[in-house]
């Protein structure tokens, strides 16, 4: 019935799917579900907006190089919404340079809506959310150019990044901008850790995003993710103990 090698995948994902629906349903009904604890580093976002307002200089929000099939892009968008809202409230400019054509209209809508919600729809500048290039080096070079011309006060790098990460972070540093980064692109985390003022590491960006935008679907997703990680923890510990005792039962189960 179910293909060999797919059984465990099927069972675990079915359980996770049901758990997700139950948690989201409970959350929507206003019942109690586990809450996300505050992520250190998020306060830095407010600090960045404050600093930009003080200096009268724009903020650069770079939502990464992921497309709309990339979870990191979805983590970045609520953060963009949050930052754009703060910017609108304090009459600060926000520049959003896009490197993925399909994300452009979404990012544009998110930013515009954030300004409208804050009652500053007129202050929104259409040209500040711009598509630069699909090619990551051209995109990075374009951001570098904006950085130098616009005297950006803070740069927020949030989402998926490739080798251009350090180029962007150093460009921001050279322009004297405060920098906050968050990425789950593992190979780029060290560069952000080294070059930025605050860095959200790996999965923290998803938690941060859900923390800022606590709606049932994202929060519920995070709860189920934690359960999945707990399962991983239990499997690893139990499996090791059993292997030590000479039984491969759990290890073999993983191949089902």
């Amino acid at each position, binding site marked *: *019935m*179910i*293909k*060999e090698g*797919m059984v465990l*995948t*099927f069972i675990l*994902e079915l359980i*996770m*799917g049901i758990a*997700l*629906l139950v948690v*989201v349903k409970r959350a929507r009904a206003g019942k109690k579900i586990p809450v996300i604890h505050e992520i250190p580093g998020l306060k830095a976002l407010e600090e960045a907006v404050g600093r930009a307002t003080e200096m009268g200089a724009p903020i650069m929000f770079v939502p990464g190089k992921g497309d*709309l099939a990339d*979870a990191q892009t*979805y983590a970045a*968008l609520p953060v963009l919404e949050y930052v754009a809202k703060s910017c609108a409230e304090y009459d600060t400019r926000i520049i959003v340079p896009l490197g993925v*054509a*399909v994300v*452009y*209209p*979404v990012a544009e*809508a*998110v930013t515009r*809506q954030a300004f409208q919600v804050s009652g500053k729809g007129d202050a929104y500048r259409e040209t500040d959310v*711009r*598509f*630069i*290039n*699909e090619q990551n*080096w051209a995109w990075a*070079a374009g951001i570098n150019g904006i950085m130098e*011309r616009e005297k950006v006060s803070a740069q927020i790098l949030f989402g998926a990044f490739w*080798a251009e990460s*350090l*180029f962007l*972070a*150093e460009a921001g*540093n050279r322009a004297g901008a405060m920098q906050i980064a968050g990425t*789950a692109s*593992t190979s780029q985390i*060290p*560069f952000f*850790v*080294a*070059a930025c003022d605050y860095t959200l590491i*790996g*999965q923290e960006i*998803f938690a941060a995003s859900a923390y800022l935008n606590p709606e049932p*679907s994202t929060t*519920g*997703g*995070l709860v*189920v*993710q934690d359960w*999945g*990680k707990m399962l*991983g923890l239990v499997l690893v510990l139990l499996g090791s103990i059993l292997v030590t005792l000479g039984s491969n039962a759990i290890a073999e189960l993983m191949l089902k």
Partner: protein
Amino acid sequence: MKREGPVALLMISGFLYIISVIVASPAMEPVAATLDDWYKVVVGFINLVGVISLTQVNGRAVLRRSEGWFYNAILLVVLYGYIILGLVGGLHNVAFNLIYDNILTPILMTIFSTLTFWIGSAAYRAFRAKNADAAILLVAAVVVMIGRVTLGSAISPAIPKAAEWILNFPTVAGMRAIEMSAAIGGIVLALRMITGLERSFMGFD
């Protein structure tokens, strides 16, 4: 049509694909194969979106004579000139390949190589033993930096061994846990999409 239609299409195509892959039935196999093929065709034919966006952004800059419009004009001329050159001349065309190999390649390689310099200045600027976390990162980085090059073994055979150990044990453990968390994160997102909970791909309207 505007919101429910796309969500329905997402759910149907997703579930159909999953069923045809997970169920051991020969009748279902062509379904996945067909969906794969269609996916490839859609991806292969939406590529002009990028070029149109590029044209829009740069064309607007040229028309408005905004700061640096001259560069935008160069970009457009070269973009369309190169496309025409390729479409008319074919891929055996000497000029097409010459431009790629002798103009594009050196620029791209050089841009990439500036990273060495950024890395040097970032390391100098940021690698300060300010606290325990930073000190650990610093020591691991220095040991691996020296241990992974020929100079390391020239100084002492213990250095490459230490570097190998850092990479093979603590680093593998850390990276593996990151991968496992990422896998779960991706799966939960996919579940949210396929159950219609995640709709932000449609933007806001």
